[in-house]
């Protein structure tokens, strides 16, 4: 092992003097686990946490000043803004502050080609399939003042819209975009709060293959006479 290679690093298994080639763009758990609705929820939450953790990153001046005064996002109960997935939503923590609640919508399968078949190898029997999921998530911006709620929704929508290309690339999606900002409404669960939904949509690629376990040409029964045109 090379003297300066930290133990457990990628270069460790290679002999001294060798230059292993790393062909991975980014090592990501997406490679192992693939996409699902929970992963996208986590991705959106992480992006928003990183945005709201520092008031200097906030686009809208009013919201920036609010977070400078009341504190930006933090992990504790003193966080200036509450950002959580719907399944972990704790209403008692968002009573007195703006909140962003992330909820996954439906995923719909978009078939590509006939029967999702992308290619087939007639010798081995291997068939490759491909298609895409059309998915949606909604980010519910909740606050006690109408303008504050609309400002929060605008901030969320613009952040995700502007970084849309980066999100598409980094999270291995085919497309990611903001669909729209909804109208100001009263939150049904709490008549003291306003809510504005921000819808996002994305395309998740999905590819797989099926391979015959037994040799495809193991047993073919036919009579030569069936093909060469004389009775036998």
């Amino acid at each position, binding site marked *: 092992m090379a003297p300066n290679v930290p133990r457990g690093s990628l270069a460790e298994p290679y002999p001294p003097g060798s230059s292993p080639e790393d062909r991975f763009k980014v090592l990501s758990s997406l490679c192992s686990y693939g996409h699902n609705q929970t992963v996208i929820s986590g991705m959106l939450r992480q992006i928003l946490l990183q945005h709201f953790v520092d008031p200097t990153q906030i686009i809208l001046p009013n919201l920036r000043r609010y977070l400078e005064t009341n504190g930006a996002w933090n992990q504790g109960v003193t966080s200036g803004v509450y950002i959580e997935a*719907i399944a972990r939503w704790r209403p008692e923590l968002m009573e007195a502050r703006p909140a962003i*609640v992330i909820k996954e919508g439906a995923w719909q399968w978009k078939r590509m080609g006939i029967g999702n078949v992308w290619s087939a190898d007639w010798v081995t029997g291997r068939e490759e399939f491909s298609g895409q999921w059309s998915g949606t998530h909604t980010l*519910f911006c909740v606050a006690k003042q109408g303008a504050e709620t609309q400002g929060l929704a605008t901030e969320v929508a613009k952040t995700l819209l502007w970084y849309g290309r980066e999100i598409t690339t980094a999270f291995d999606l085919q497309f990611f975009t903001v669909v729209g900002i909804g109208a100001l*409404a*009263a939150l*049904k669960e709490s*008549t*003291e709060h306003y809510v504005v*939904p921000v819808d996002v949509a994305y395309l998740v690629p999905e590819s797989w293959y099926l391979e015959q376990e037994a040799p495809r040409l193991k047993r073919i029964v036919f009579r030569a006479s069936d093909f060469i045109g004389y009775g036998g």
Partner: protein
Amino acid sequence: MSGDNQAQAKLPPLTPGELAKRGLIKTLDISTYEPNQRVVDGALGLNRATSREAINGPECPQGQSR
């Protein structure tokens, strides 16, 4: 300013729930909210057939021409 107007000015602003009761805004239920699928498909470019129809106009009934 009359006495009535002064009294009105001191009233607190209406809560979202009261605004919804008066029909000024809608009530949104997070549990049942779903994005408009047609709008979503449009944003993702998945409703090309619909777009073509919008450009060409609706299909004529059989046997008729525009």
